[in-house]
């Protein structure tokens, strides 16, 4: 008897009990779909993070304060997957130990060409938290309000789509001017928001004149990158934050190759200024590659975690197939006896039941791929899933392999029944 023949028997066996077949394949379907969707979510969020990090530029460094004496990395990026540029800095550390301070003098020292020759630009940053903008009755809660120097725009690769950018004059004259992102602008004046230029907007009751609208960053992942305001650091310190520590210092190295050297120079400068050693450093310098690898490994862990959850559900589906096949073999013991009595060989019986099991998982697998692909088109918890071809192939392959593996035992059990015992089975 050939495979086609076994396949015909198998199809008949599978279709004889549609409800049971549907439920069994559902187990496989869910497993396969879960693998595809969850791996896609993992991929999607790491893609989003990688992209927002890569927009920081490959030759920028960020200096943040950390608690004294702890050294190492602290107050780093704020959780996964919502990393966005320039969030609240590390100054908000606890109070029990000496709170580290980054000062404008630190920034100036880093900018000194003789102390740190590989540093091209420096931008000190302070961020004001929970800032509400009001204009003509409209209000908007700004997610990121940054006081900084004009060089920040160059470092961060920002430009102005309408109006003027920040100038050195604005800094020195402590002018209350601001650049707003399009999300802020649209909320305040409606339309495309460009009319906000020239208007005076209240930020927590302090009047700033909007001189320009920032070019859209576009948003990847859950964070809206256009919900931000930039203003001269001097004016922000005058009004919103006071004259305490900087949140961070953004530094641009001369080129991508001198990032490491620049980092070493910054550390030397700050170590001598703060009278600390590398081991006791009260600040941390993050360079894009170290950040990227940290985030990548986090998201890989995340993806592996999701994938293993999904794999477990696939395994459960496989056990479902085995369970049903064992029931089927028991139910059809007599049929097996009849088939043997009229000349079925061991291989014929194994083939028939194995094919039945594989058919169940094949069907479940195909449906699972379909559901997984459709499911991955939707945004899930703020992440646009990115389907990886390998996860589809793997999930499908594992599903079919599961059918083979879990079908083997019941099929062999069926085939090894002695014909007379099978026939006598009630």
């Amino acid at each position, binding site marked *: 008897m050939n495979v086609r023949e076994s396949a015909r028997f198998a199809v008949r066996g599978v279709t004889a009990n549609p409800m049971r077949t549907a439920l069994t394949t559902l187990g496989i379907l869910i497993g396969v779909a879960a693998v595809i969707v969850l791996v896609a979510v993992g991929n999607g969020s790491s893609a989003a993070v990688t992209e927002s990090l890569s927009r920081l530029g490959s030759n920028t460094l960020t200096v943040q304060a950390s608690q004294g004496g702890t050294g190492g990395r602290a107050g780093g990026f704020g959780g996964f997957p919502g990393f966005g540029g320039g969030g609240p800095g590390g100054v908000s550390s606890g109070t029990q130990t000496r709170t580290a301070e980054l000062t404008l003098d630190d920034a100036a020292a880093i900018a000194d060409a003789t102390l740190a020759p590989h540093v091209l630009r420096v931008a000190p940053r302070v961020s004001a938290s929970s800032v509400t903008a009001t204009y003509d009755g409209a209000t908007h809660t700004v997610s990121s309000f940054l006081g900084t120097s004009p060089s920040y725009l160059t470092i961060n690769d920002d430009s102005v789509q309408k109006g003027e950018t920040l100038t050195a004059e604005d800094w020195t004259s402590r002018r209350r001017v601001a650049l707003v992102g399009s999300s802020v602008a649209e909320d305040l004046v409606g339309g495309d928001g460009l009319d906000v230029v020239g208007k005076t907007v209240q930020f927590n009751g302090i009047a700033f004149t909007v001189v320009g609208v920032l070019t859209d960053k576009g948003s990847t992942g859950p964070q809206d990158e256009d919900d931000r305001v930039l203003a001269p650091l001097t004016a922000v310190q005058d009004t919103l934050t006071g004259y305490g520590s900087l949140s961070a210092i953004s530094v641009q190295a001369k080129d991508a190759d001198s990032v490491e050297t620049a980092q070493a120079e910054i550390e030397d400068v700050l170590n001598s200024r703060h009278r600390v050693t590398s081991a006791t450093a009260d600040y941390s310098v993050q360079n894009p590659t170290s950040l990227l690898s940290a985030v990548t490994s986090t998201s890989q862990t995340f993806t592996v975690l999701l994938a293993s959850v999904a794999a477990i559900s696939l395994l459960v589906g496989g056990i479902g197939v085995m369970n049903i096949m064992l029931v089927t073999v028991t139910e059809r013991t007599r049929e097996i006896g009849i088939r043997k*009595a*009229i*000349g*079925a*060989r061991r291989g014929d019986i194994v083939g028939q039941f194995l094919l039945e099991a594989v058919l169940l998982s094949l069907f479940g697998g195909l449906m699972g791929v379909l559901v997984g692909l459709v499911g991955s088109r939707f945004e899930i918890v703020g992440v646009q899933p990115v389907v990886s071809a390998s996860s589809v192939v793997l999930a499908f392959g594992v599903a079919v392999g599961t059918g083979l593996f879990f079908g083997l035992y019941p099929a062999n059990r069926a085939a090894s029944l*002695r*014909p*007379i015992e099978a026939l006598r089975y009630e």
Partner: protein
Amino acid sequence: MPRPVLDLRGVTKVFGAGDTAVHALAGVDLVVERGEYVAVMGASGSGKSTLMNIVGCLDVPTRGRYLLDGVDTRRLDEGRQALVRNRKIGFVFQSFNLIPRTSAQSNVELPLAYAGVKLAQRRERAAAALARVGLADRGHHLPSELSGGQQQRVAIARAIVTEPVLLLADEPTGALDSRSTAEVLDLFDDVSAGGRTILVITHEEEVAERAHRVIRFRDGRIVSDERRAPRGTHVAVGGAA
């Protein structure tokens, strides 16, 4: 003289062991020549079905030798036994044993499928076998849509479709009324006239009357073995009484 189809020598079958051992067959010697029509009778529990299962290669004897068509069945491995069941033997069971949810036509095709016969030829031969048992128009019916007599005729069609040398039937009319019984017996006569060997187990004299030879069992032994019409003679071949 051609070799016999069946040649059993000192066949015993013991179920269980020790005190609870049941000697279902206690030394059976039996030779059946090609073309014979043999009825096997005897009280319930006398070992008839046990004999049938051994003869049909569904079970193996505890002791003794069994030659089927001159081949010692102990020498056959599992695969060859399946081949023998497929090519040389046709089974008819009391409970029909058709495969459920499978059409009459497919049921009859099944032994041919296991024999590796091509689909077109299989269709044709199965249809011919169904026609022979008078069910040409019922090929697409499921077993559940057929009467007992019809189901048994489908089972007979399935048993003869491979043209086996030996047709084995264990109480084939046990579940049938007298009209269906007559139909089945006519079919057996027909098969016998075609030169096939038939071994039929029965409790009914009506069935035994059609046979050329009647063997009686008691407690796992043959107690009588007589040939009768239509071969003409009533020869007692003397069993161990």
